[in-house]
């Protein structure tokens, strides 16, 4: 997986990462058009309304696509997971035999703590 990376501060999405540290998975939804989007942002990427809000996500979804990265010291399974709330997000699939991963497989969120203290939402088979 990726090396540590120095990121500039981002007040727009800090509540998301704070919630992750508390074990909660947030999704951003627009009150104007009613749609959830990914990655979270203040202005809705569909209708451009600023009436977007955080909501507790179900943490459930299904695998849209995936690939096992083989040519690295520690192979890993990158994926796009389609959340029950609608949007698809990039993530990794953990806690399973990579050869059992399939498109359409139901998955549920878990949190992996990185060296910089970030709690990263990852997914494992439901």
């Amino acid at each position, binding site marked *: 997986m*990726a090396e540590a*990376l*120095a990121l500039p501060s981002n007040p727009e999405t800090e509540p998301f990462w704070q919630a992750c540290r508390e074990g909660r998975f947030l999704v951003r939804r627009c009150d104007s058009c009613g749609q959830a989007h990914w990655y979270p942002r203040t202005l*809705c990427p569909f209708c451009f309304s600023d009436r977007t809000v955080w909501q507790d996500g179900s943490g459930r979804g299904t695998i849209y696509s995936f690939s*096992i990265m083989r040519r690295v010291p520690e192979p890993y399974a*990158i994926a*796009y997971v389609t959340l029950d709330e609608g949007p698809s997000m990039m993530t990794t699939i953990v806690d399973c035999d990579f050869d059992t991963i399939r498109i359409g497989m139901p998955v549920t969120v878990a949190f992996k703590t990185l060296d910089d203290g970030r709690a990263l939402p990852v997914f494992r088979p439901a």
Partner: protein
Amino acid sequence: MSIRNQAYIAGAYEHPTRKATGISLAQLHAEVAKGALEDAGLAKDDVDGYFCAGDAPGLGPLNMADYMGLKLRHVDSTDTGGSSYLIHVAHAAQAIAAGKCNVALITLAGRPRSEGMATGTAPRVWNAAAPDVPFEYFYGPTVVNMYAMCAMRHMHEFGTTAEQLAWIKVAASQHAQWNDHAMLREVVTVEDVVNSPLIADPLHRLDCCVISDGGGALIVVRPEIARSLQRPKVRLRGAGEAPKHQMGGKIDLTYSGARWSGPAAFAEAGVTPADIKYASIYDSFTIPVLMQLEDLGFCEKGRGGAFVADGNLISGVGRLPFNTDGGGLCNNHPANRGGMTKVIEAVRQLRGEAHPRVQVRNCDLALAQGTGGSLGTRHGSATLILERES
């Protein structure tokens, strides 16, 4: 206003190096510029427009303009990754039609091989302030696994097979055997491709392009200048450009931005895919070739696997000769950006200057297609339709 027939590609040059250990990056840019000017029969002082992208060292076009000693009245540093140079051709035509320049120089160069860059297998961040970075970087998105996820989904929805993808590499290798400068000149079989090691499922080593140093340049001029030169006349008949991204999470990995840039280019050109004699298709891996062919309308969506199989992309064998220089898969992928070499080989074909063993007969209409960035996240697509003026 249409740019149809408003500008001509008068010069094209591909640097012969594939490993530039003893050549600086700025020097590579200048050497390809010199090569393209000599090819056109023009001089440096004729250049009044300069186009480059993020591979040019410095702040946009400024530092290379300084290095080369260019006196300019028009610059454009649009960067959509490897598709930038096709967009530059279209933008140069726009600038020429608007009277903003007469002779546009476009350069590309890079040294990823000499610099030992982990091109495909390590995550790359263009700008840590990009809003998507915290939501992607830590998952390890590399070039290869992002394209691999497109292939995985395409296989799932349409039944595309690894063997069908392999035919794309086979066709490229059939062409590369005739190119003295190609990095990989050995002809490979479908079995060679599918038996090569998996890099990121379902892509094998031989589904991936080469990593090479080098570069290329183009000279785009107004029609009166093209007619005054001694080279065969290749004009821009139509162009389209379109970014594709994650669409707020409504992700669909089965198509590329060519779904939009292709029809725009065909509409401007007033031709259809059936009219195209030769196609340069961006080929960082096998899978983008298949997807772009579908998106450009050479076959139906989902039928790309059948279209590319059985040698259909091999010059002299199939319906649609592609990447007759060997493409990124076998010849050259300078700066990890494939668009420039796509245009150059299309120009060779239209001039009748491709290798005789791969030259398409009566090649009067060609397409060049570029994708830049990452097919699995955000990319820029650009399509050019080029015509030989008889």
